[in-house]
Structure formats: structure tokens, C-alpha cells
């Protein structure tokens, strides 16, 4: 008997198709064709019933228990290395706190000049660092990580002191990390009508995202930064070979401030507020260029 339904006509072929039907691997058209064959042939129907019965029996076999002890053992594998990270972050937040280093915040400084400035902070444990115990190896691990950061030769970041230093330092380190990451953006789009809903869906906040491509500043996407434990939207613009990260923190007080220069070292940073958002623009461009970007953004965002 031959069929014109596109299915194999040899017994082995149709048998495999019945297995595929039971396994849910067939699309609707093929499944329909196989079901018709089964309905027309008692031998195929018997085979189908056998496969269904066997699969049901195998599926019902008791499965090994995942004991709490075993799950805890595996979860412990995941924790390896995390504690060192927490220690390093505790040290980083120390660096970001004005009280720890008045007037000087070194994120990823380059060279010995900075190193001399950071060392005192290591000697002074922050409350958070203390919480993670007094084991010497932790302090050692943290100092190894700081040395690694220093040795990486990343551009140094020194800022004026002020209440927002912690936030600014976090914005700066977010920008630096983004330059090292495989992609500086989570949502790739030059279309603000894509970027804004994406940010809105993620964190319920979407800042103005004008496309300034005509001015030479192309919107290339966005990402979510986590600063001071809160998610904040970040837009990424490109100007020639430079990336600009624009972090927009929703404002509570509605205060408006003029652009304020927070640049130093290798990065330029400008901070301003428009009443709805507090903006932080950071780039490795020269200051005048960043000022130009800020001026155009403010004009377009109004």
C-alpha cells in the first residue's frame, strides 16, 4: 500500500514517525498524516499504543531525590569566589566614601602615585568590611584585587569631593566596566522608540532618549546600571570612536542644576539635573566635546 501524504512508506520509516509523534516532535501537518496512517492500520495502532504505554511507564519511574545536604553541597560550589568579591566591593565602597579619602577618590588608578593614595584606605576597615569577619586572608584577597586593578593600568579616576561622590564613582566604574565588557549595551538599537520601552519594561523608568545622530552623537543603545543598590537607566551614545554613557537617575526633589564639571584624570564627566532626572554623562572624550554633547542633549530633551 502506498500513500501520498509525504510520510516514508517503508515500515521502519513509519515506525520512527510514530515514535516522533509520541515524542511531540512532529508539526501539525505531519502529526495529522501519521495519525491517519495509525487509524487505518491496526498493526501501526498496536505499535503506537505500545510506545505510549512504554513511555508512560518510563516517565513514572521514581526519580532520585535531591537531598537538602546534596543541594547545599552544590550551592556551596557556586559561592566559591563570591566572598572575595564582596570584600573587594566593600573596599571599593570605602574608596567611594568621602570620609575615607577626603577630596580624593581613586577608582582604577594608574601608577604608583595613586597607589600611595589608596593604601591608607586598606588599613581602615569600613563597617561593611568588618561584617565579613576578621580573617586575614580576606584582607589579603582584597589587597591582591586592588593591586590587580592598579596594575591593569586603567585610566585613573580622581574626583572632587562632594555629596554625590559615591554615585559619581559608581557611574564612572560602570562606564569603565562597560568598555571592558563584550558589549557596552544590553539593548542594541539606534531607535529611541525601542530603547525607551525596553528600559521602561525592565525598571519602569525611561529617561528622554533623543537621537542626536545628526549632531554626530548616535544613540546606540541602553543598559541598566545598578548604583547604590538601585537599578538606573543608562543610555549609550557614540561620537566617532568614543562612547558616552549617560546615566539618568530619577529625581525626588525636582531641583534643577546647571552642568557641573566632575572630570579629572582620563575621563570627562558632567552632571546636571532637569527636575525630572539627574544626569551623569561620562566619556573619554575631551571636555569641550562632552560639553557640546551635553548642550545638544539638553536642548533636544526639553
Amino acid at each position, binding site marked *: 500500500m502506498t500513500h501520498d501524504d509525504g510520510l516514508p512508506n517503508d*515500515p521502519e520509516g513509519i515506525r520512527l514517525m510514530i515514535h516522533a509523534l509520541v515524542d511531540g516532535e512532529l508539526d501539525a501537518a505531519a502529526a495529522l498524516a501519521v495519525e491517519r496512517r495509525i487509524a487505518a492500520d491496526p498493526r501501526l495502532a*498496536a505499535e503506537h499504543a505500545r510506545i505510549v504505554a512504554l513511555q508512560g511507564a518510563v516517565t513514572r*519511574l521514581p526519580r532520585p531525590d535531591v537531598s537538602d545536604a546534596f543541594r547545599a553541597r552544590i550551592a556551596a560550589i557556586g559561592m566559591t*569566589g*563570591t566572598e572575595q568579591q564582596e570584600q573587594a566591593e566593600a573596599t571599593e565602597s570605602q574608596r567611594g566614601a568621602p570620609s575615607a579619602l577626603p577630596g580624593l577618590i581613586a577608582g582604577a588608578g594608574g601608577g604608583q602615585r595613586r597607589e600611595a593614595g589608596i593604601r591608607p584606605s586598606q588599613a581602615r576597615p569600613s563597617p561593611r568590611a568588618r561584617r565579613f569577619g576578621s580573617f586575614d586572608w580576606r584582607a589579603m584577597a582584597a589587597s591582591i584585587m586592588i593591586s590587580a586593578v592598579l596594575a591593569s593600568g586603567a585610566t585613573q579616576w580622581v574626583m572632587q569631593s562632594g555629596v554625590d561622590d559615591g554615585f559619581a564613582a559608581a557611574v564612572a566604574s560602570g562606564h569603565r566596566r562597560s568598555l571592558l565588557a563584550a558589549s557596552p549595551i544590553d539593548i542594541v538599537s539606534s531607535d529611541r522608540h525601542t530603547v525607551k520601552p525596553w528600559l521602561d519594561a525592565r525598571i519602569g523608568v525611561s529617561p528622554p532618549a533623543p537621537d542626536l545622530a545628526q549632531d554626530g552623537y548616535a544613540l546606540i543603545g541602553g543598559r541598566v546600571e545598578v548604583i547604590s543598590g538601585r537599578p538606573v537607566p543608562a543610555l549609550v551614545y557614540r561620537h566617532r570612536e568614543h562612547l558616552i554613557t549617560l546615566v539618568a537617575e530619577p529625581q525626588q526633589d525636582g531641583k534643577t542644576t546647571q552642568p557641573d564639571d566632575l572630570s579629572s584624570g582620563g575621563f570627562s564627566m558632567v552632571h546636571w539635573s532637569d527636575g525630572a532626572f539627574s544626569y551623569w554623562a561620562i566619556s573619554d572624550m575631551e571636555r569641550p566635546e562632552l560639553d557640546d554633547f551635553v548642550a545638544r542633549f539638553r536642548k533636544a530633551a526639553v
Partner: protein
Amino acid sequence: MSERALAERFNEVVLPHLGDALALARWLTGNAADAEDVVQDACIKAHAGIAGYAGGNARAWLLTIVRNTSYTWMARNRPRAMMAVGDLGDLDDMAAAHGTSLPDEDGPEASLIARADTAALEAAIAALPQPFRETLVLRDINGLSYREISAMLAVPIGTVMSRLARARGLLASELGRAS
């Protein structure tokens, strides 16, 4: 990616699938105690390689590591069992040859299969040649698709299908004989 993000990813990718990992290791090594050792080794490897997990089916990703770890473990701890596996090519030929017989010639009634007791079924699965057993376990116990199994075992989908059909055919006739 930071250590912390990697640790979070490990928790999201690995921990939900420990039951599947244990089930696969149990059927590949033959017992539950060895399965825990194998899965623990596999999770250490998964943790080391978590940065390379590129999204997609986390269960399939973890099970691939579990499978490879199982065979490494078997080769180290039970070299004799590994030697008994035989030549894969022969088995696939066998599977193809078996399929040419008409389906109802030696198949037991479906109701007989449905009534088979757990011990008999487990013994029948344990007795399957390894390539058939792992294909059956990946499909019917771990619930992977043909395509995922094909990628994991690096064999064509047709081979996955014929191994699965062969495995089920062997199980059905074994259960029919036992009853």
C-alpha cells in the same frame, strides 16, 4: 562579568536541574550513590565553565557536562564496564536492521507494558546497551528533544531516532518476556 554575577548565574542555571542531572548520572553509572559523586564533579566543571554558557537550554547544557563527566568517571573507576560497551557503529547497524522487521511481530500488548512493575522496567533499562540507554534516558526521563540529544551526542537526528526506537523495542520485548 563579575564573580557575583557568575555565582548568580550558576545558581540559576545549575541548581534547578540537579534532579535531572542525578537521574541521568544514575542511569549512566548504574547507581544513585555514584550519581551524586558524578554530579558534584560535573557541577564543579559547570562552575568553572559558567562564563561559557551562552544562554539557551540550561538543562541541556548541564546534562552535556554530566554525561561527559559520567564517562570520564566510568573510565577511571570502572574501566571494565566501559570496555563492554562495544562498537557504536555495530549497534547502529543493529538498530537499523532490527527496524526492518514488522512492528507487531514480537511486540507485547500495550496493556502488558503498562502493568510492568518498576523493578522489571529498571532492570530492563539497565540491561540496554549504553548508546540506546542514554538516548532513552535523555528523551523519556530528562525530556530533551531529538535536536538537543542530537547536538549532545554529536550524531544525526536519524541516529537519535533509530536508537530511541531500538531502545524502546528492546524494552517492550523484555517486558513482554518477563511477564
